């Protein structure tokens, strides 16, 4: 028995305008139905024209995920009826998406294959309510037509932890590219896992899609619940039915929503209103150049070239603003004998707000508050040796766990060195010598 999980992730792009019209794409918290026009309302005779920036961002994300970019691509209509979709079809991509066959590597070395990255439009927002005595659904079409990128993986996951890590890495890349805020709570990033269980390692005959997951935590819980539920069914020698289920946070379980339609029921066909897109190699090279150095490259560089601890390298590169600030500071620091590690220490442990300080100012602060970089390690070592030798009682107290003695020993060592230095280095040295 092995879980087989594939992911569909939707990321809403933060372009200024919508995917196929000039309405503002920023709908969050706006008065309902004030960001619409004939195109995104699906009125007859309206002509959709693709947003150049949205398409470029989609391709850039594909490149960042190691995808191949076909030189030609087109849009298709995906037909279905639902009140949040005024046209009766969604403009999406079917057999010629912008990006194909990519991958993303997890920290444990496992490579998740990415089947495709394609461009589509978001639907309107439904609110279920009771008006008068009537149960109704209310529709706000401000979100209708907002650019949406869908990233589809192969069914390469077998546990929820890897799914969570993949999502976090994907979110980080999207934020590095500055193409979406990718906030799951706000719905900028949405996850739909397909989950099934294989008895013998082959691909199962069914899959269950889970919707309504709006945080990393829910993703883990919903997947774990669904695996348990399906195992129960399989234990009774039955096969779970192919369907869409929703995660119910209150009940802490998934609930059946509807039996899944076959792909052919969407009756995809080429969007006749939008001519195909063709790239030149030169254009694609241009997109590639716009991609900033990505987090996993930064971590490698910081660890190997700047010689900082890998755990710190990961934290410093968590977001691109901090990473870029770090790099500038390191550069200035190198002229003042301040090591990259001490810059990282300061950034990570002193709660530096990088928008309130310049890299040069930070270097000054580091120099004035600690002489870590200029003090010779052997000098610290000798001082600690001397202090421990001269204070056997304190040393003994420390060994039996009286931690308050540590402060005393630090003070003694400081006095011995006669210079202001970072106490953390002294603590490290004391720990080393008393182990």
């Amino acid at each position, binding site marked *: 028995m092995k879980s087989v999980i594939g992911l569909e992730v939707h990321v809403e792009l933060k372009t200024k*305008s919508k995917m196929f019209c000039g309405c503002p794409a920023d709908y969050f918290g706006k008065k309902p*139905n004030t960001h619409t026009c004939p195109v995104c309302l699906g009125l007859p005779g309206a002509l959709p024209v693709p947003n150049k920036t949205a398409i470029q961002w989609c391709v850039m994300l594909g490149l960042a995920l190691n995808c191949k970019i076909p030189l030609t691509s087109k849009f298709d209509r995906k037909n279905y009826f639902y009140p949040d979709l005024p046209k009766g079809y969604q403009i999406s991509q079917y057999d010629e998406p912008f990006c194909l066959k990519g991958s993303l590597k997890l920290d444990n070395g496992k490579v998740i294959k990415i089947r495709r990255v394609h461009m589509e439009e978001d639907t309107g927002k439904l609110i279920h309510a009771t008006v008068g005595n009537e149960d109704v659904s209310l*529709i706000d079409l401000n979100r209708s037509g907002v650019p949406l990128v869908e990233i589809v993986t192969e069914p390469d996951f077998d546990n929820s932890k890897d799914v969570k890590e993949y999502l976090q890495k994907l979110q980080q890349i999207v934020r590095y590219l500055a193409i979406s805020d990718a906030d799951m709570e706000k719905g900028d990033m949405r996850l739909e896992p397909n989950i099934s269980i294989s008895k013998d390692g082959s691909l199962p005959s069914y899959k269950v899609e889970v919707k309504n997951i709006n945080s990393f935590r829910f993703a883990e819980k919903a997947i774990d619940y669904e695996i348990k539920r399906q195992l129960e069914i399989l234990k009774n020698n039955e096969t779970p039915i192919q369907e869409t289920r929703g995660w119910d946070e209150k009940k802490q379980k998934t609930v059946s929503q509807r039996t899944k339609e076959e792909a052919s*029921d969407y009756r995809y066909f*080429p969007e006749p209103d939008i001519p195909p897109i063709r790239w030149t190699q030169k254009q694609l090279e241009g997109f590639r150049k716009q991609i900033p150095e990505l987090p996993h490259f930064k971590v490698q560089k910081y660890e190997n070239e700047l010689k900082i601890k890998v755990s710190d390298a990961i934290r410093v590169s968590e977001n691109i603003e901090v990473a870029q600030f770090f790099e500038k500071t390191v550069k200035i620091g190198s002229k003042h004998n301040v090591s990259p590690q001490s810059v990282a220490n300061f950034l990570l442990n002193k709660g530096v707000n990088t928008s309130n300080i310049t890299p040069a100012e930070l270097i000054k602060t580091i120099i004035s508050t600690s002489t870590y970089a200029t003090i010779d390690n052997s000098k610290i070592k000798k001082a600690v040796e001397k202090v421990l030798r001269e204070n056997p009682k304190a040393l003994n107290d420390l060994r039996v766990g009286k931690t308050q003695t540590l402060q005393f020993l630090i003070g003694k060592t400081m006095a011995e060195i006669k210079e202001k230095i970072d106490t953390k280095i002294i603590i490290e040295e004391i720990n080393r010598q008393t182990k």
Partner: protein
Amino acid sequence: MKINVKHVAKLANLPISKEEEKKLESQLSEILDYVEKLNSVITKGVEITSQITGLENVVREDKTESCLTQKEALSNAKNTHDGLYKVKKIL
């Protein structure tokens, strides 16, 4: 070719009567048979296309334009509530 008219009607969200179902079944079959004639054309060496306009890369710059007012947007709706379209409860 036999066609499941009920299924097609459901996908197209069209209510059809029993008589219509019968009539449409033969009509749709005839249409398909007619279109099937295309299969006899030899298309070897012809590039696959989904568009015959010859146009490519028709895109717009990412700029915002003015929108309809809420009142205008809702003006064709059968039912509204508080600036929203109102439909029978779904799901």
